[in-house]
């Protein structure tokens, strides 16, 4: 009898795994099914470019079906819940899918409704997110005619998807208003729950320095409690208040509601997972990839890509009844747009903070770590092509899954 591999979520992680596993597993032995409620695949790193008119919607969307390989069943449906005891997944339309192995790749989403006043009368009028296509497009329209004022960029609380994106947005905003000759009319303030510009000390110093150079105010240790639509302010739990004319909010994030209904999640609906093997803490035949997991590393595409290599190897181990041989080290690799055609790059893992140096080839690059270069910006732009054509299809890339110290400078 054929066995069943079921993948929940056809985003970055689910699609990569469908491609990798279909190539590896014999069709006579394994059926592969992937479930997603949406038909459109978004290139999420591209959302950042939309408010400034650098990308349009058409630049960041393609049909999900284009990336699911032949021999994989693609089911469009909402997921009700996983029954881990009985190896079943219930779909919203009533269908029940049986599995031998389950991969959860349902990602994370913003939850603006969790903060009082955030999704109020000003939502998508002068309060925006850029983590959804709707938010990014609404903001693009708003910026076209905005005459300036207090621009506040605020992270509600961690964890968030792509922790560098709010900084990139801020750098882009500085460059955008400078180029339009109205930077003197826009007072930019970056408001974060962290104690600095970023969580890791050296990167925080470097990025904090850039904020200062660009004349951007920073407010730290601010955890968003509510948005006052009447007064146009944001308030934190200690009572501190910051006025805005335009608020760019990075709302609270949570896992898919399916995770909570299945009893597999932590307080925020992220699946509790072994951070090294990527196996669920509750059921040995459930595995997790990407933003859906509670991994203590960035929720970012590069992480998914590195996890996919680990998961691929460990699934082979699991199927053949061997101990796991691959271990995820928390490797993350992020291009950071800093505006004016330049970018920075950071490379780190669970234990090693971002360090200066060159990447991926020691001493050569072409990319520079923890510094602003033009090449890093081109790297980010090239990445969109790589994403659609190489990454989603699960093909090899010339970057090690495990973070390497080669090319990094400790002092």
């Amino acid at each position, binding site marked *: 009898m054929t066995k069943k591999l079921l993948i929940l979520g056809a985003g970055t992680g689910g699609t990569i795994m469908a491609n990798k596993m279909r190539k590896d597993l014999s069709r006579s032995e394994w059926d592969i099914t992937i479930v997603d409620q949406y038909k459109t695949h978004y290139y999420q790193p591209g959302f950042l470019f939309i408010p400034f008119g650098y990308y349009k919607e058409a630049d960041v969307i393609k049909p999900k079906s284009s990336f699911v390989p032949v021999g994989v069943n693609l089911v469009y449906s909402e997921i009700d819940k996983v029954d881990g005891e009985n190896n079943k997944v219930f779909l919203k339309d009533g269908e029940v899918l049986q599995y031998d192995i389950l991969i959860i790749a349902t990602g994370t989403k913003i939850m603006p409704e969790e903060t009082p006043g955030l999704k109020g009368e000003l939502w998508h009028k002068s309060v925006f997110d850029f983590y959804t296509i709707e938010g990014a497009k609404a903001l693009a329209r708003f910026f076209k005619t905005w005459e300036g004022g207090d621009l506040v960029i605020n992270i509600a609380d961690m*964890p968030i998807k792509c*922790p560098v994106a709010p900084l990139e947005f801020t750098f882009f905003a500085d460059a955008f208003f400078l180029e339009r000759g109205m930077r003197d009319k826009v007072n930019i303030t970056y408001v974060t729950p962290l104690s600095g510009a970023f*969580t*890791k000390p050296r990167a925080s110093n470097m990025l904090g320095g850039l904020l200062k150079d660009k004349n951007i105010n920073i407010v730290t240790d601010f955890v968003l*409690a509510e948005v006052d639509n009447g007064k146009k302010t944001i308030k934190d*739990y*200690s009572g501190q208040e910051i006025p805005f004319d335009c608020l760019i909010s990075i709302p*609270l994030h949570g896992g898919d509601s399916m995770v909570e209904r299945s009893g597999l999640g932590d307080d925020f609906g992220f699946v509790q997972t072994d951070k090294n093997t990527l196996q669920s803490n509750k059921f040995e035949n459930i595995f997790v990839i990407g933003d859906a997991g509670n991994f203590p590393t960035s929720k970012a595409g590069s992480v998914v890509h590195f996890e996919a290599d680990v998961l691929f190897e460990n699934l082979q181990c699991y199927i053949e009844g061997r101990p796991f041989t691959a271990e995820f080290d928390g490797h993350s690799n992020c291009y950071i747009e800093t505006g004016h055609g330049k970018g920075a790059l950071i490379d780190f893992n669970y234990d090693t903070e971002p360090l200066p140096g060159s990447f991926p080839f020691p001493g050569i690059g072409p990319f520079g770590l923890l510094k602003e270069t033009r090449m890093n910006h081109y790297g980010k732009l090239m990445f969109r092509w790589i994403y659609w054509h190489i990454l989603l299809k699960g093909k090899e890339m010339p970057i090690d899954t495990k973070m390497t110290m080669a090319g990094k400078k400790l002092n």
Partner: protein
Amino acid sequence: MAQKTYAGVTVEVNEEGYFTDPSQWTPEIAKEIAAEEGVELTDKHFEMLEYLRNKFNSGDALSIRGINKSGIVDVKTFYGMFPGAPLKKSTKIAGIPKPSSCV
């Protein structure tokens, strides 16, 4: 790496004063760290410290928003109990590492 003495016990701490070995923690020690931080510990405080230690031991990330789910106090009260930077203060008193806010 440094050492500090609380309630007659020498403990290992990092340069910011956070415990590097949470198993060295005792409630007596907590009272002395709290005094350094200008906090007087009540039973509610100890309930909170225990919650934080349990969360840490089970590998869960700590965050301000998570406090609402603790079932002990809400975030506003938490700010009142550990004024200023509540998560940083409370974790220091609980003898666990400073939350990394997982990048």
